[in-house]
């Protein structure tokens, strides 16, 4: 296997492993633990490759200058990138240790037996251990060539249930989240945000607040406003006071008078043809004219803005130390890119900044974590020497995080005389899908930077040219179709702040694609499973689809009144895990949808931690169901009106279906990330099931009773 990109970027073996004299092994990953339990998988991979008991291994995660730079933990890439990097690095470590042992024991390396880090020779029965061989020293070895890793047939650990770590701390509340960290001399801060994106701070009577108990400073820089106090409750009171007395100019209004789905087709845009998942510069062919003979079909699907909605508001700690060294703790998914973004915004050298990942709430993409980091730094810069813990309020998290982009998908297909698709057009209209901070000078993607006296503005979005990237992610069908015309439209000047949210455009594109497949099947009078299989020659995709059909007893399904069944299928990014989702719904006369049952069949390549994969797939299904049934970020010209869990409701325990998950393990195949695999198939399966139950085709998310009734009136 070729060397992992993470290893090419970080080739020093000592960056990945430290063998301690007491027999403990420290394995470093540049990925962050976000609740996806990547650390359990990394520990298991390392233990397997080194032939040690997993209890010897401690995994350390994202910290600049300490762990390898593995950019962001996102895109369902962590197993492929860090999992493979650790596996290959450990194979190199094992090889070095075998050679050292062979010399020490006077044995041939091939004849040595390894058992839990102890190496024994066959010839003279002498023994040594990894930790004795290393004696607390470093490998001093640069990985510059490929290496053979263990074959699945010789595994001792992978393939068995793993002992997961870290749960005892979570269930007892003793695992410290970033929000819980205490440091000597630490003070507390809050930022006070404007009433909307466009408002400017005119004036505020800082003195009133400076007189309040515990207040240390009011920090004002342009329209950036924050307060620091000795105690957290004092900071909250001072922030509430500032919020009530700050005088904002909010005469500039958000563009709310034109429906977002109209703006998506009327605003300025850049359009690109997508061929084999790649946007290219070739001219976009004119779409076929719609034929009146029923041989062609069209449909338009809509997805609103959705929010990450992390359970805790974003937070960060910043500490300016001597000689202007800056320490930052963040729940960002990318500590190295955040360090770069902070260095640029502050005009500081990168190597004066250390960013450490600390556990935060599940974030599912780019939420307010990085913005909070700059907030905290701006306060800490005014109060040098003292660590500052800054937290957002719930309202700020809801109103200021970058949302998942609203989208509009326009579909068209033509069928031949056998009822097979022989022309396919998919156009996706959307704002950008990714505005993650990094090297952006002379711009900044950090929110507070936009509001400074000397603002550092956000860059104008450019179309992603990444294969199966942003707006065109999963627009290319997994089906074997000829005559595909796939177009992405990057639409500008849209009203809300956006960035990466779980699945990016895959969620909406798969919603359109897999709903449209059902519409075509229905028009042909063919069973939706059969219609898909007729167009599907990808064997692994067929396998998950047929497995979910078997698990859900699709062929013998039998529905009662108001009940319906639906399927959805995708391979995330056309290159990650395959997932097929089945749902069983009922719909009442008011249009209220109930998820009765669900099933998932998935193929994530080689599986290291089956429970971890199951948890990611089911979590994705439930989160997708929540977006699809309930969620839409609302706003008016005055700003965001989704400001708490009542104005932005999400799925609760009453609404969650039972889920049966079946996994296909392929030990001889590469890891395929599973964290985003069920988002798209789930929304499509729900829409398809509602059609099966009612004959009403849902083309606009969310499927609230109101939107169901609207669709019924229009069908």
């Amino acid at each position, binding site marked *: 296997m070729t060397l992992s990109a993470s290893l090419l970027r970080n080739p020093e073996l000592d960056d990945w492993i430290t063998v301690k004299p007491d027999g403990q092994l420290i394995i470093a990953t540049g990925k962050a633990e976000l609740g996806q339990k990547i650390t359990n998988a990394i520990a298991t991979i390392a233990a397997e490759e080194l032939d040690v008991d997993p209890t010897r291994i401690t995994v350390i995660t994202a910290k600049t200058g300490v762990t390898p730079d593995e950019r962001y933990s996102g895109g369902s890439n962590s197993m492929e990138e860090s999992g493979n990097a650790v596996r290959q690095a450990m194979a190199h470590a094992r090889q070095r240790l075998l050679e050292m042992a062979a010399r020490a024991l006077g044995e041939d390396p091939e004849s040595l037996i390894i058992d839990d880090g102890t190496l024994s020779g066959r010839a003279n029965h002498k023994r040594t251990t990894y930790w004795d061989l290393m004696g607390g020293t470093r490998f001093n070895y640069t990985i510059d060539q490929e290496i053979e890793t263990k074959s699945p047939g010789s595994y001792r650990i992978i393939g068995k249930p793993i002992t997961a770590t870290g749960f005892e701390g979570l269930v007892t509340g003793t695992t410290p989240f970033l929000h819980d960290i205490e440091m000597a001399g630490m003070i507390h801060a809050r930022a006070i945000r404007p009433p909307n994106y466009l408002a400017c701070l005119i004036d505020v009577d800082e003195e009133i607040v400076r007189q309040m108990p515990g207040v240390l400073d009011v920090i004002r820089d342009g329209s950036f406003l924050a307060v620091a106090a000795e105690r957290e409750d004092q900071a909250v009171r001072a922030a509430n006071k500032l919020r009530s007395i700050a005088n904002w100019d909010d005469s500039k209004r958000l563009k709310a008078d034109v429906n977002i789905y109209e703006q998506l087709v009327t605003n300025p845009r850049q359009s690109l043809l997508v061929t084999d998942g790649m946007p290219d510069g070739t001219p976009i062919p004119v779409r076929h004219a719609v034929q009146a003979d029923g041989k062609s079909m069209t449909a338009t699907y809509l997805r609103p803005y959705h929010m990450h909605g992390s359970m805790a508001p974003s937070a960060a700690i910043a500490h300016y130390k001597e000689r202007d060294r800056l320490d930052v703790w963040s729940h960002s998914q990318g500590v190295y890119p955040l360090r770069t973004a902070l260095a640029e915004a502050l005009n500081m050298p990168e190597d004066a900044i250390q960013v450490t990942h600390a556990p935060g709430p599940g974030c599912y993409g780019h939420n307010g974590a990085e913005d909070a980091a700059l907030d905290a730094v701006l306060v800490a810069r005014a109060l040098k020497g003292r660590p500052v813990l800054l937290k957002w309020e719930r309202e700020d998290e809801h109103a200021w995080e970058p949302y998942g982009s609203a989208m509009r998908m326009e579909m068209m297909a033509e069928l031949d005389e056998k009822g097979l698709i022989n022309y396919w057009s998919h156009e996706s209209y959307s704002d950008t899908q990714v505005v993650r901070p990094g090297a952006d000078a002379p711009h900044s993607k950090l929110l507070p930077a936009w509001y400074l006296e000397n603002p550092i503005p956000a860059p104008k979005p450019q179309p992603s040219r990444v294969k199966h990237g942003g707006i065109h992610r999963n627009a290319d069908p997994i089906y074997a179709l000829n005559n595909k015309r796939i177009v992405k439209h990057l639409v500008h000047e849209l009203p809300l702040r956006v960035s990466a949210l779980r699945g990016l455009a895959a969620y909406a594109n798969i919603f359109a694609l897999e709903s449209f497949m059902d519409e075509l099947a229905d028009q042909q009078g063919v069973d939706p499973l059969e219609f898909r299989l007729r167009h599907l020659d990808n064997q692994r995709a067929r396998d998950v689809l047929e497995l979910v059909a078997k698990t859900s007893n699709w062929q013998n399904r039998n529905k009662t009144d108001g009940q319906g069944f639906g399927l959805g299928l995708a391979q995330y990014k056309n290159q990650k895990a395959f997932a097929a989702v089945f749902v069983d719904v009922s719909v009442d006369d008011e249009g209220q949808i109930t998820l009765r049952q669900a099933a998932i069949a998935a193929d994530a390549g080689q599986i290291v931690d089956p429970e971890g994969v199951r948890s990611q797939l089911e979590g994705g299904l439930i989160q997708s169901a929540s977006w699809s049934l309930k969620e839409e970020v609302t706003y008016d010209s005055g700003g965001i009106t989704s400001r708490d869990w009542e104005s932005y409701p999400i799925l609760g325990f009453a609404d*969650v279906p039972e889920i049966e998950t079946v996994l296909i393990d392929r030990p001889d195949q590469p890891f395929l990330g599973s964290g985003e695999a069920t988002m798209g198939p789930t929304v499509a399966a729900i829409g398809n099931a509602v059609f099966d139950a009612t004959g009403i085709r849902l083309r606009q998310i969310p499927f609230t009773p109101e939107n169901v009734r609207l669709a019924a009136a229009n069908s």
Partner: protein
Amino acid sequence: MANITLEINGESRDLTIDPNTPLVYVLRNDLGLKGVKLGCGLEQCGACLVLVDGKTAFSCSTPAAAFEGKSITTIEGIGTPEHLHPIQQAFVDARAAQCGYCIPGMIVATKALLDTNPNPDDAEIREGLSQNLCRCGTHTSILKAVKRAAQEMQK
């Protein structure tokens, strides 16, 4: 500032605080009970749940002084990593946590439920957790954990 006395995890604690401070800040910052999480401050998400005289109560917005004379139990009073409560053990066994931020509140709600209804059916469990939000989508594992806890505690 005022002197108040709160009974927390079986101990009487004397505090000098602004009595209008919501309980969650007092628990976390004056008493170091950081297992109690702040999620919304609006009594909408359940991350801050504690037991007050055996029933669930939000700690995020009611002033601490309102809890005088009552018995408060936080997640720290339910079990420790070394001595897990059977509910906590069931959550570990079911791997019922992703990010884990909501989990202390879930366990507090489960404790209140099983203390009054040791053998709840599925609908009663869902009702018992109706004050708690989870964004990672761990619901199915949490439901399994609560069922497992109920079974274990009846043995």
